[in-house]
C-alpha cells in the first residue's frame, strides 16, 4: 500500500497532463474479435496516451494479448480469428485499409512473453528490420546496431561476439536483444506482452528501467500480470476482464479507489 502512496504523489502531475494534452497516439473504437463462437474481445474502446506507459491488467485469458495482436495486425496470422471495428493510429484506421501492413507493423515494436531471437547472429537480428526497410548502407547498419545495443545496455556484453548465434545468449540478454531489434526499426509504439514473465529478477529490473527511459521517445503498451510492476511503471491503466474493458484511467485512481467489484477483487488477489 505504501508503494502506491508514493507512486501516487509522483504521478498526480503526470496524469493531469494526459487529460489536458489529450494527444492520444492510438484510438480503438468498437473492436470485436471472435474465434468461432467465442467472443474474445467485446466492444473495446480505448485511447493510448503518447509517450507514456499504458499498462493493461486483468486475469489470464481476458483478451489482453489478443488486443495487443490486433493493434499490430498480427491477428492476420490466426485465420480462425474474425476482427471487426477500427483502430486509429494518428489518423489512419489500420483495420479497414489495405495500408502497407509491414510498414505499419514497423511503427510498433513487439516484445513477447518469451524472447524469440531469429535463428541468425546477434548482429543480423538487430539489422533484420533495417534490411527489410531496404537499408543497404553497411556503415549505417553498423551504426544503428551499436546504437540500439547500447540503448538496451547489451553492447558491452556482446560487442566481441556479434556474429555468434543469438540463441546462445541468456534469456535476459535475448529479451533485451529483442527490444534492441524492435527499436532499430524506429517504432513509435512498443507493445510489450508480459516481457519479464520468463526473466530472472535482475533482468526484469533492467527491462523495467529501460522502459522508464524509453518513454522520452516511445509510447509503451505493457501487458503484465505482476501488479507491483504495473504500479511501478504505469502512467495510465486499463483493466480488462472477460474481453471487456472494465475500468481505465490514471493509476492512482484505479489502484487506490477501484470503482468496480471486479477490479477490487483482482487487486486483492494480486497483492
Amino acid at each position, binding site marked *: 500500500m505504501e508503494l502506491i502512496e508514493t507512486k501516487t504523489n509522483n504521478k498526480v502531475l503526470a496524469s493531469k497532463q494526459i487529460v489536458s494534452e489529450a494527444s492520444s497516439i492510438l484510438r480503438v473504437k468498437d473492436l470485436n474479435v471472435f474465434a468461432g463462437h467465442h467472443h474474445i474481445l467485446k466492444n473495446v474502446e480505448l485511447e493510448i496516451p503518447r509517450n507514456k506507459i499504458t499498462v493493461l491488467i486483468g486475469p489470464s485469458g481476458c483478451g489482453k494479448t489478443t488486443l495487443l*495482436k490486433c493493434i*499490430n495486425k*498480427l491477428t*492476420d*496470422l490466426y*485465420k*480462425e480469428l474474425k476482427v471487426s471495428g477500427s483502430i486509429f493510429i494518428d489518423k489512419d484506421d489500420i483495420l479497414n485499409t489495405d495500408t502497407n*501492413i*509491414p*510498414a505499419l*507493423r*514497423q511503427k*510498433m*515494436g*513487439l516484445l*513477447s*512473453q*518469451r524472447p*524469440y531471437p*531469429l*535463428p*541468425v547472429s546477434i548482429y543480423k537480428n538487430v539489422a*533484420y*528490420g533495417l534490411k*527489410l*526497410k531496404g537499408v543497404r548502407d553497411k556503415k549505417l547498419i553498423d551504426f544503428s546496431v551499436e546504437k540500439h545495443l547500447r540503448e538496451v545496455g547489451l553492447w558491452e556484453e556482446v560487442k566481441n561476439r556479434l556474429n555468434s548465434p543469438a*540463441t546462445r545468449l541468456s534469456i535476459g540478454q535475448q529479451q533485451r536483444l*529483442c527490444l534492441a*531489434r*524492435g527499436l532499430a*526499426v524506429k517504432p513509435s509504439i512498443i*507493445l510489450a506482452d508480459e516481457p519479464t514473465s520468463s526473466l530472472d529478477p535482475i533482468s526484469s529490473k533492467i527491462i523495467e528501467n529501460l522502459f522508464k527511459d524509453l518513454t522520452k521517445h516511445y509510447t509503451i503498451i505493457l501487458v503484465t500480470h505482476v501488479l507491483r510492476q504495473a504500479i511501478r511503471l504505469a502512467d495510465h491503466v486499463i483493466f480488462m476482464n472477460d474481453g471487456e474493458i472494465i475500468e481505465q484511467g490514471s493509476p492512482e485512481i484505479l489502484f487506490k479507489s477501484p470503482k468496480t467489484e471486479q477490479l477490487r477483487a483482482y487487486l486483492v488477489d494480486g497483492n
Partner: protein
Amino acid sequence: MQIRRIFLDKVNGFWMVFSMITILIIPFIIGVGLYLKAAPLFENQSLLKLIFSSSWAPSTGEFGFWPFITGSLYVTLLSFLFTAPVCLFAAIYLTQFSSPGLIRVMHPVIDVLAGLPSVIYGVWGILVIVPFVSDYAAPFFGTSSSGYSVLSGGIVLAVMCIPYTLNMLIEVFNTVPNGLKEASLSLGATMWESVKHVVIRGNYPGIISAYGLGIAKAFGETIAVMMVVGNMVNTSGNPFEAAYPLPALIANNYGEMLSIPMYNAALMFAAFLLFIIILMINLFFRYLIHKTKRQ
C-alpha cells in the same frame, strides 16, 4: 500366489530384455550375413573393380556393378528433382498460408498415400506415366521411347516419395513457434519474407534431412521402379531410355542366381551395398534431426 507373481515377473522381465536385444542385433546379423554371402566375390576381384567396372557377364564370372549403381543414382536424382520443389512449396502452403481446414483434410490423405503399397504406384505408372512418356514427352523432345524409361521411373518414384517427404517437412515446419513468425512480422517483414527467413532458413537441417531420407527411400525402392524403368543396362544418360537400378537387378535375377556360380554372391553383394548405403544415409540424417530437436 506370491511365488507365481515372482515367477511371472521374472519371465516377463526376461522376455522384455530378450526382445530388446534381438531387435538391436537383427541389423548386425543382416549386415554380417549379407557380407558373408557376398564374400566369395572378393576372392578374385577387388572391391573397386566390382563397383567401378561396367562389364556384366555372370556366366564368365564378370560382375561390374557400375551401370546398376549409376542407373539407381540417375532415377533417384530425377525423382529428387521432381520431389524437392513440390514438397517444399506444398509444405509451406499447408502449414503457413492455407486455411486450417485444408491441412486437417490433407493429413489423413497424406498418411494413406504414404501407406499405399509400391506395387500400386507401379500399376499407376504403367497405366499413366509410361504411355505419357512414349506418346507425349518423347515426341515433344523429338525422340522416341517405349515409355519404359528412366524418366518414367523418376516420375513414379517422385510421386511415391512425395507423401513421405511432405509428411516430414510438415512436421518440421509445424515446430516453428508462432512467436518467431510474429517477431519477424512485427519488424516489418511480409508474410513471405517471414516464411523465407524464419521457416525456411531456420530449418535448413530439418529440410535437408527430410530430403535426405526421401532420397534414401527412393534409392532402395524396388517394385514400383522395376515395373516402369525398362530393366536394361544402358549408360547413355538419355532419360527416355531404359535403365537397370540395383534393387531391380536383385529382384529380377533371384530365380537363376543359384544356377550360375558366384551369381548368388554378386546379388548378395548388391543387397549389401544397398543396405550399407541406405543405412549410412539414414543414420546421418536421423542424427541431424535428433541433434536439431535437442536444441
